[in-house]
């Protein structure tokens, strides 16, 4: 019996979301009185033994040409074999782009009940009950997993990374690796920028910005805060900004530490995707804007005047003015 954590990586680097999943899995293993082990498929530049600092005792590192690209079907078959060979009782994924494809498939393959979008450690005092977000963050549900084995997909930014001093043993396993049926033909990464779903700080703007030509002041604040950019749905629909930046009930759901919303009214569908942010700052010229009700800090004023001042003040605090 053990807790097995899927460790995801991109461009040779382990994703922050996976460090959250490892920290979560390690604490869950401690709670269940068992060991925490990780599994990583493909090639990475990092030293995997260092992942012991987040609490895993062992990391299985499997390399094969068929694992060089992410293919949900191949990864599922390989992970199921790893779970069987290591006797894993609980599988932990980050609920990120890979976890969203893998966790449901593993749930079926292992006949293990799935909780996706988990936000805290299970309550194991009476069964196995995991809290997850529902209604786009407007409510939560406690979901009881009734099977022997379990699969959890942990929401991004829902769990704090713990860092200690351990070292993990790095091992390999013998598994069958089938050939993928998908073939990657191109990749388009906006490299160097902060990824929206993983970002700790997000700067977002809405129709109040009047047009795409005005996004310079939004980008400058984002740069000063080392933040990812986001926008409201009409802004993406009008092609002022790419679809990938649209947050809300029908866009990306995010939970950063700080969400700055400039010139966004705060419609219920927008709030649904951002209400899990720890601190919300709203800048809007209309004191009646509904967003103020969901905010922690607010300024009633003109974005064109406030945003540049905001950027300057941030630079001062960060000592880069």
């Amino acid at each position, binding site marked *: 019996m053990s807790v097995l954590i899927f460790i995801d990586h991109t461009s040779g680097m382990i994703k922050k979301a996976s460090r959250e999943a490892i920290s979560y899995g390690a604490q869950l293993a401690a709670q269940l009185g068992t060991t925490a082990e990780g599994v990583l498929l493909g090639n990475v530049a990092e030293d995997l033994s260092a992942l012991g600092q987040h609490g895993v005792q062992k990391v299985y590192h499997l390399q094969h040409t068929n694992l060089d690209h992410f293919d949900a079907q191949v990864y599922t078959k390989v992970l199921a074999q790893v779970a069987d060979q290591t006797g894993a009782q609980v599988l932990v994924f980050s609920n990120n782009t890979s976890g969203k494809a893998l966790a449901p498939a593993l749930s079926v393959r292992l006949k293990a009940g*799935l909780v996706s979008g988990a936000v805290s450690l299970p309550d194991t005092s009476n069964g196995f009950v995991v809290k997850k977000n529902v209604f786009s963050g407007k409510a*939560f549900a406690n979901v009881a997993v009734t099977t022997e084995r379990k699969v959890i997909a942990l929401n991004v930014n829902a769990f704090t990374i713990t860092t200690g001093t351990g070292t993990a043993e790095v091992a390999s396993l013998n598994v069958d690796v089938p050939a993928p049926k998908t073939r990657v033909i191109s990749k388009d990464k906006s490299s160097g920028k902060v990824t929206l779903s993983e970002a700790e700080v997000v700067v977002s703007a809405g129709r109040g910005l009047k047009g795409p030509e005005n996004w310079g002041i939004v980008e400058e604040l984002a740069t000063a805060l080392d933040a990812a950019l986001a926008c409201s749905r009409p802004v993406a629909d009008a092609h002022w900004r790419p679809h990938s930046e649209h947050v809300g009930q029908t866009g990306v759901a995010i939970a950063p530490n700080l969400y700055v919303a400039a010139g966004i009214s705060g419609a*219920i569908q927008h709030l649904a995707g951002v209400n899990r942010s720890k601190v919300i700052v709203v800048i809007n010229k209309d004191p009646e804007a509904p967003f103020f009700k969901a905010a922690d800090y607010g300024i009633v004023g003109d974005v064109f005047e406030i945003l540049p001042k905001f950027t300057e003040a941030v630079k001062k605090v960060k000592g880069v003015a």
Partner: protein
Amino acid sequence: MKILVCISKTPDTTAKIAFTDNNTKFAEAGVQWIINPYDEWYALVRAIELKEANPAITIHLLHVGGTDSEPIIRKALALGGDEAIRVNADPTDSYFVAAQIAEVVRSGGYDLVLTGKETIDYNNGAIGGMVAELLDFPYVALATGLNVEGSTATVKREIEGGEETVEVSLPVVVGCQKGMAEARIPNMRGIMAARTKPLKVTEPVAAEPLTLVAEFGMPPAKAGVKLLSADNVEELVRLLHEEARVI
């Protein structure tokens, strides 16, 4: 080519979220139901676009749910699609629904199965991946673009910080989201045609749910906003730095 579009039913995005029966059930009284936006705006509309380009394509819609779901199934048919199937069962958990969908795909011989990225009520995003695994089909999640040429699908999908284009031979399951198509509204002709399109009802196959919702709850309320004046931006940044500690 046969496409199956999986349609789910969700409360309207402005519906009041509340629970009854000791917080074990969603309070449905007075709630307006809609087709889950991802299923309607992206999966269904993209399937219709593919058929517009190639009339040899057949589109079937599939919903797992009770009789009270028929209005939303008719609404989906008004947008397009040749016929609909309703599996007459309460959608208990993702695994149960996935097992029903997989059975329909198996007996119907579909080449392309489209689902939404997730439903906006339970936010599971699980059914597409489960259906693919039950059928041993490849699965592309979080798709933002889809094209089909002969027996090959070209799918654009979201990855952290970007997009990737993959090629895959049919049959395949694709989970659809924004970018794939532009939302449409049904026209009068579509609404009239939908009335006479076949809506078949089938009985569920046996499948044991793997999870159950024990209880719902609401997140704690916010303390209330701290308002600052427009000439006090420096104070805001100081508070974010020293009080909230997020800068």
